[in-house]
Structures are given as structure tokens and as C-alpha cells.
């Protein structure tokens, strides 16, 4: 084992510092190469950790400060397959993003590469950590890098405003997390997750535990952009430069949910176990609302990156419903779904970036018909849309199938309908955009502007294609579903986690994976195909008829005020975002106080 756990964080940080210090002697091409190599190394190291963690949790105490009599003195990385898997995803996306920005991206000296590597280090540290305050430090590290990267396009006022809203809202969320940590520390005198879990398990779920959980929940929901904490996301993700957007949509939003799951299962599952039913209802409600709001807003957009941003919100909602079932099966499905979905969204952001670079705009209406000479990009976008809809054999299908199975087992079979509707909505928006831009459907072609002509550059196409291939591969690896369920079972096993971290007990070894029949279960495959068909229909419907017919005008009149109301709510005003944050905090707090008795 040796030094492996420390390296995925130490290496990118060291290289980032070197890139800045040696900037006068490093040329642009060399900086690109070094950054890509470092990101690929991080991805490889995390994959190695993933393989190692499959056999049992990997616990690494920094500074050699092992716990004494159950009291953790130092900071530990407690690595399990879920955390290592997310870290690997981050490494892969970062490598793809840095390849995308090779040559054609306006990098500011070596500062851009350095900041991206620090961002990556923050994400990796966050996923691997087993100490609550350490998680907070890495959370702030990735957030600070994100604020700066979101405002990268300083010439565009929209980008600056998005970054401001992003920074202020997420900072408030971070302070809420810190307040929650403080409360837990005051009760138990511990910062290590396993030790906190043990300290709280022996006590009742009193008001301090409830409010600490509320603060952590709200803080992490802000990062994950769950409704009503999501108003900052569209502006920030839409105006960020493409490589940054790939990382944001691919992994950063899921980190908030990962943190909530981790904190819940290691710390709160003891005292809150008795109220799991009510908690399940609250979290499910949040997931459903987020998924629907994100989906509807997605369809209303014709700015391509805002469309993808709202698709991110709605898919976060779907992942949350999987987590909300508060069981290993739902968790496994959610993890698989999040990873595959992250790869697909990264690919879609890259494809839209290609469109932006070559056609000079991301407005669907202004781009009508101008994408005809980008056939590969068109293919990737259409495949990505199908992947978002969860069509087999994409990994998203597998994750959704697991979640639907778990939902059915928990008595919430109606979740399947939600998955179908939301998948149809996001796929529809994308397919409509693809139809307009690449096929010129729905109206006369728009005027062209000055931009580099010709086919897309390979350094931009390759990352998009490879990420999509990755999402396909996840769905095709045999036995993955069983292994993910095993990993989820270990994730939700609080006593085993505590024993591994505090006493160095090795994991339960190889419990037999639940046997999943090979191939695709017919039920979920049918629903997924239905979602894709619905999406196709919904997406192409506005494109096919030139003049609105009677029934179309009537439906438009019915839905127009809803659309207008939603749009006016999402106006990007900082005060509004923070107000909704406090409203959400009050709402969730009241619900939790009522549910946990």
C-alpha cells in the first residue's frame, strides 16, 4: 500500500506550484503537456486506489498519527470504492478537459493549468477524506478554484455575474457546513467521521443532532444545486469556459450528494435510524421537485450551455431520489448513474464547446442549420442525448435500473414514472437543439458569422468521443452491477467503517455479490426506450410544423404563464438566491424537526 493514498493529492499540488514558479521558463505547449500528464497520473493513481479499496477499506493516517483508544488525533483518508470511483471520474474528466483546451484555449500563461490542477486536487482530496474538517478544507479548495475558473471569461459581463452569484451563494453554504461541523464537535469533541459516528450512536437524536444534520444538509445541497438552492447554477455553469464546464457538470454537482451520503451513513445513521421513514420522504420530495424543475427549465432554454446546466440540475434530482431510499441498493444505483451521467455530461459540454468554437455562438436559434459541416459532433450530441435518457447499453441505464428496482422494493414504484418523464424532458431539449443546429429543422438557416471553418479539431473531438465511450463501457462491463452493490453495502455499514478506521480492522472481505442476471432486465429497458421515444417526439414536435396549429397555440397559451413565471424566478439576482437559500433552510429545518422525534 505504502504511500499511494497521499499521492493523488500531493502530486497535482506540487506540479501546480511548480508551473507557477517556473512560469518564465515554461512554454505554452510544455505547460499543456505537463498538465495533461499530471491529470492522467492522478486518474491512474485513483484507479489503483479503487482496485485496492475493492478488497477492503484503505485507511491512511497522515503524519503517522494513528488513533489512541478510539480517539483520532490526526487526519485520515478512509478510501472505499465509492470515493475512489468518484476521484477517478474527476481525474478522467480533468484529463479530457485539459486535452480539450490544448492549443485552442486562451490560457493565461501557466495560471490556467495550475488552477485546474489545484481544482482537481481539491476534488480528489474531498472524495478520499475520512475526516469531516478535512473534507471541509478540500471543499473550500475546490470551491475557491471553481469561483475563479467560473469567472474566467472576464470580457463577458454575464460570466462575471454568474461567478459572483456562484461565489456568494456557495460561500454561505460552506459556512453552514462549518457551523454544522462546529455543533458536532461541541457535542462529541471529534472531527473524524468514524469517531463522530460512534460518539453520536450512543446518544439520542436530540435537537443538536437534528440542527447539525440540517446545516450539513443545506450546505451540501447548495453545492449539489438541489431546489431551492439551485438558482446560482445556470449562470455559473453556462458562462464558464468549456473545459471548466466539463468538470463542473461532470463531477462537482455530484460531490454535494456524495458528501451528504457519506456524512449520513458514517455519522447520522445511528441516531437517525429510527426516523428513516420520514427522512426518506423529505429527501425524496426534494429529489422529485429538483428533477422536475430542472427538466422543465431545461426544455425552456435555447441557450445550449444553460440547457445543459439545467439538465445537470434535473439529473442531480434523480440521483438524489436514489440516495433518498436510504438503502444500499438505491445508493449503488445512484452512484453508477452519477458516474455514467457525469461522463456523458462532460462529453456534451465538450461537444457544445466545439459548436461554440467553430460557429461562434451557443444560441440554438442563431445557430439554426449552421452545424451541417460538423457531422461527428452531431453524432456525439445525439448519442449523448440518448445516454441522458438512459437508453441501454449506456451506464445510465444500468444505474437507473438499479434505482428503479430499489424503489420498487421500498414501495415507491411511482419513481419509475418520474425517471421516464425527466429523461424524456432532458433528451427532448437536447434533441430539439441538435435538430435545429445540425439538421436545420424548424425554420430558415441563420446567418453565418466569422469563425474557424471546417471539421472539428481532433483535440476537441477526441475527449468528447472518449468520455461517451466511457459511459458506454460502464454499461457493458460484466458484473459491475453486483460489485457496485457490494461497495454500496459497505458504504452503508457504519460499524464496519468505524472498526476499519479506528481499529485498523480489515474489511469483511469478499461477501458474495448478489447475483444479477446478465443482460438487461426487460422492465427497465422498456421504460428507458419509452423515455427515449417520448423525448424524440417532444423534441422534434416544435420543429416539424412551420405555423402553429390550433391545438399547439392552445397548449402554448396554457403553458406560457408557467414558463414566464419560472423564468422570472431564475433571474440570477444574488439577493434572490440567498433569500431562497434561507427559505429552503427554514423549510427543510421545519420538516426535519417534525420528522425526527
Amino acid at each position, binding site marked *: 500500500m505504502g504511500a499511494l493514498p497521499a499521492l493523488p493529492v500531493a502530486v497535482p499540488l506540487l506540479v501546480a506550484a511548480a508551473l507557477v514558479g517556473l512560469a518564465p521558463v515554461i512554454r505554452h505547449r510544455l505547460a499543456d503537456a505537463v498538465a495533461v500528464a499530471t491529470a492522467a497520473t492522478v486518474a491512474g493513481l485513483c484507479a489503483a486506489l479503487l482496485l485496492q479499496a475493492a478488497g477492503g477499506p484503505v485507511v491512511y493516517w497522515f503524519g503517522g498519527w494513528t488513533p489512541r483508544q478510539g480517539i483520532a488525533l490526526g487526519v485520515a483518508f478512509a478510501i472505499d470504492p465509492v470515493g475512489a470511483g468518484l476521484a477517478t471520474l474527476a481525474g478522467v474528466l480533468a484529463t479530457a478537459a485539459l486535452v480539450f483546451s490544448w492549443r485552442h484555449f486562451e490560457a493565461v500563461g501557466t495560471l490556467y493549468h495550475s488552477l485546474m490542477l489545484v481544482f482537481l486536487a481539491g476534488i480528489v482530496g474531498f472524495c478520499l477524506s475520512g475526516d469531516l474538517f478535512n473534507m471541509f*478544507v478540500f471543499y473550500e479548495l475546490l470551491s475557491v478554484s471553481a469561483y*475563479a475558473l467560473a469567472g474566467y471569461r472576464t470580457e463577458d459581463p454575464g460570466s*462575471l455575474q454568474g461567478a459572483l452569484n456562484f461565489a456568494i451563494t456557495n460561500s454561505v453554504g*460552506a459556512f453552514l457546513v462549518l457551523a454544522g461541523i*462546529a455543533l458536532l464537535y461541541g457535542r462529541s469533541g471529534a472531527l473524524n467521521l468514524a469517531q463522530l459516528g460512534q460518539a453520536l450512536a450512543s446518544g439520542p437524536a436530540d435537537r443538536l443532532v437534528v440542527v447539525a444534520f440540517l446545516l450539513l444538509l443545506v450546505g451540501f445541497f447548495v453545492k449539489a444545486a438541489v431546489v431551492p438552492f439551485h438558482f446560482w447554477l445556470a449562470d455559473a455553469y453556462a458562462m464558464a469556459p468549456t473545459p471548466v464546464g466539463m468538470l463542473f457538470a461532470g463531477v462537482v454537482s455530484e460531490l454535494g450528494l456524495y458528501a451528504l451520503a457519506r456524512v449520513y451513513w458514517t455519522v447520522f445513521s445511528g441516531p437517525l435510524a429510527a426516523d428513516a421513514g420520514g427522512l426518506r420522504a423529505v429527501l425524496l420530495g426534494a429529489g422529485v421537485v429538483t428533477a422536475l424543475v430542472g427538466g422543465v427549465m431545461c426544455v425552456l432554454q435555447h*441557450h445550449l450551455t444553460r440547457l445543459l446546466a439545467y439538465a445537470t440540475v434535473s439529473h442531480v434530482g434523480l440521483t438524489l431520489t436514489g440516495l433518498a431510499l436510504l438503502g444500499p441498493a438505491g445508493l449503488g444505483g445512484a452512484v453508477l448513474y452519477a458516474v455514467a451521467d457525469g461522463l456523458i455530461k462532460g462529453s456534451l459540454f465538450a461537444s457544445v464547446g466545439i459548436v461554440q468554437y467553430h460557429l461562434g455562438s451557443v444560441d440554438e436559434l442563431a445557430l439554426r442549420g449552421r452545424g451541417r459541416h460538423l457531422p461527428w459532433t452531431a453524432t456525439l450530441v445525439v448519442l449523448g442525448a440518448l445516454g441522458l435518457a438512459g437508453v441501454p447499453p449506456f451506464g445510465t441505464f444500468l444505474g437507473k435500473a438499479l434505482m428503479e428496482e430499489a424503489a420498487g422494493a421500498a414501495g415507491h414504484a411511482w419513481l419509475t414514472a418520474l425517471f421516464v418523464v425527466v429523461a424524456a424532458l432532458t433528451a427532448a431539449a437536447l434533441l430539439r437543439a441538435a435538430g435545429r443546429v445540425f439538421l436545420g429543422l424548424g425554420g430558415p438557416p441563420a446567418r453565418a458569422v466569422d469563425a474557424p471553418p471546417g471539421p472539428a479539431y481532433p483535440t476537441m473531438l477526441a475527449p468528447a468521443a472518449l468520455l461517451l465511450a466511457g459511459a458506454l463501457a460502464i454499461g457493458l462491463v460484466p458484473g459491475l452491477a453486483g460489485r457496485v452493490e457490494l461497495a454500496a453495502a459497505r458504504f452503508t455499514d457504519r460499524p464496519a467503517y468505524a472498526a476499519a478506521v479506528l481499529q485498523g480492522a480489515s474489511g469483511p472481505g469478499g461477501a458474495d455479490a448478489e447475483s444479477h442476471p446478465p443482460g438487461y432486465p426487460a422492465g427497465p429497458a422498456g421504460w428507458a426506450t419509452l423515455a427515449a421515444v417520448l423525448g424524440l417526439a417532444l423534441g422534434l414536435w416544435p420543429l416539424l410544423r412551420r405555423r402553429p396549429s390550433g391545438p399547439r397555440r392552445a397548449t402554448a397559451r396554457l403553458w406560457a404563464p408557467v414558463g414566464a413565471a419560472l423564468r422570472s424566478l431564475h*433571474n440570477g*439576482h444574488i439577493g434572490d438566491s440567498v433569500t431562497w437559500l434561507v427559505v429552503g433552510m427554514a423549510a427543510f429545518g421545519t420538516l426535519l424537526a417534525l420528522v425526527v422525534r
Partner: protein
Amino acid sequence: MSLLPYLIAAWLFLVGLYGIVTSRNLVHAVVCLSVVQSSTYILLLAIGYERGGTAPIFLDVPVGTRAVDPVVSALTLTDIVVGATVSALLLALAVQTYKRHGTLDTEEFRSVRD
């Protein structure tokens, strides 16, 4: 009242948020964010305080003297650095916004029209 420092922390938190929500000037909003952050310092340090305890520095006093918690001091140090850096970034964003928009009035900022 033994709850007073915690109430102060909660009050500062809400007052800072009120400032952000109702501010008309971007720099004012950034400073209000610092107020929100200072509430977390007070919460942390109040939790670690021990009545009659001295600073956890044993240069002049023997080891074993009653001292306050050193861990919350370390946490607060980290928190202060984080806050300073976030404020710096936000102010840089404010400077650029002023140059692009000519105003710092938050009411003037709207989303990209879709």
C-alpha cells in the same frame, strides 16, 4: 447567560445574510459575507472555551495547566484564511464587474437572456 456567545453567533449570521439580501452595492455585499463568516469564528471559539483556562501555549506555564481547546483555534485559523481568500476573489470580480458594467448596483445584474 451561558447561551449568549452562541446567540451572538446566530445573530451575526442572520444579520450578515440580511445585508447580502438587501444590499444595493456589490462591495457592501462582500463585506456582509465577511460578517456571516465571523459568526462561524465566534461559534467555534466559544465551543472550545474552558472557564479559567489559559491559552494552550506552555512556554511560561507548566504542562498540565488548565488551557482552552487548541483544536478550535486551529480550525478558526483555517477559517480566517479561507474567508480572506474568498473576499479577495469576490472583490476582484467586483472590480471587473464595475469596469464592464459601470455600476456596482446589484439590481442591475440580470441573467443572460435565454
